């Protein structure tokens, strides 16, 4: 109901846009904001006596503003590919912080990231392992290193997937998995 939504909204906003929030952690600075956008019905917006708009907790949409360090505040659409991915991860982790699920699956969320951002992403995921399990699919060596356990999927028999356990040094530069005895 109204109160639960309001509590969640305030918690997620704090985790996302606060001084020690996820956005600043992933961008190494900058500022972010989550705003409620009252859905304006055909009539006029309602206002409090002091002029600020009445927030209809049950009807408003959610707007996100992201300001990477040193840049003017941007609407989401003007961020770069990597900046969007990092902002999305920050938002996801903030929701996770306010209501952790027992597991989280991330399928190549690091595809658009440069190495510096992959590093920050891995460090943030590490901070959530007290509450949840993460299943991370990746082609980035740095992300493979951050996994505590690594599985390879191969198609030695064409068209049929098999699971093999691997150590990080078995993953060749071309992503193919070498057999352990080939070390």
């Amino acid at each position, binding site marked *: *109901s109204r*109160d639960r*939504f309001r*509590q*969640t*909204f305030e918690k*997620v906003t704090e985790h996302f846009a606060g001084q020690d929030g996820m956005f600043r952690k992933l961008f190494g600075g900058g500022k972010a904001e989550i705003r409620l*956008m009252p859905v304006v019905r055909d009539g006029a917006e309602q206002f409090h006596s002091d002029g600020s708009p009445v927030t209809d907790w049950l009807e*408003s*949409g*959610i*707007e996100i503003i992201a300001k990477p360090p040193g840049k003017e505040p941007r609407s*989401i659409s003007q961020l770069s590919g990597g900046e*969007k*991915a990092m902002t*999305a*991860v920050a*938002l*996801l982790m903030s*929701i996770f912080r*306010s*209501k952790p*699920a*027992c*597991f*989280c*699956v*991330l*399928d190549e*969320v690091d*595809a*658009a990231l440069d190495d510096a951002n992959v590093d920050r992403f891995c460090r943030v995921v590490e901070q959530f392992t007290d509450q*949840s*399990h*993460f*299943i*991370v*699919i*990746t082609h980035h060596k740095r*992300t*493979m290193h*951050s*996994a*505590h*356990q*690594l*599985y*390879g*999927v*191969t*198609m030695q028999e*064409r*068209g*049929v*997937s*098999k*699971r093999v356990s691997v150590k990080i040094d078995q*993953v060749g530069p071309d992503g*193919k*998995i070498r057999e352990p005895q080939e070390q």
Partner: protein
Amino acid sequence: MRLAKLTLFGFKSFADKTEITFDEAITGIVGPNGCGKSNVVDAIKWVLGERSSKSLRGQEMIDVIFAGSAGRAPMNMASVALTFDNPELSPEVLAAREAQMRQAQLLQQAESIEGSPDAGAQVAGPAEAVDPNTPSMIDARVRARRALPVDSPQVEIERRLYRDGSSEYLINSRKARLKDIRDLFLDTGVGADAYSIIEQGKVDAMLLASPMERRTVFEEAA
């Protein structure tokens, strides 16, 4: 509650029975393009009740059954099972949970006294006698001891689909309905389309969604 194991058999490119255990906090899955990594994600969504074949990258649901390869014939069944550890909750967690439930009830009662229409309907007032043996009441009692409302240290959910189109769900090897699976994970953040599964290429889907669509994600987390 902890995710323990995933078992695939005849699901997409996993023709042979394949088990993936999750003993560590971060499990990496690697391999060349097209080897079957995202099929693992599809398997998790599917067993949790995904009903749209399009969101599993197929045209119809039987596309999830192994369709054959250069050396193998197509199979007639796809099966995926997901196993969770479901230990008894520690006394501290139990106490915290009970306090939380009590607070939520007080909050709802306060709303219903104020007379706001949406709150009243949600709480059965103290005066109404509730039959202690209805499924939901057993559920509540069991819920009080373990994370998932099944009185067993491990909970396995399984989904099967046959090439003739018939399908079934199972909870700890007993037949169940999709609704039972959904009820099982109510309020845990786990689900086929929950915020906790980010598919390939969809990392910024939440950012690109409309403000109202984003709101539903926040509501899910409430």
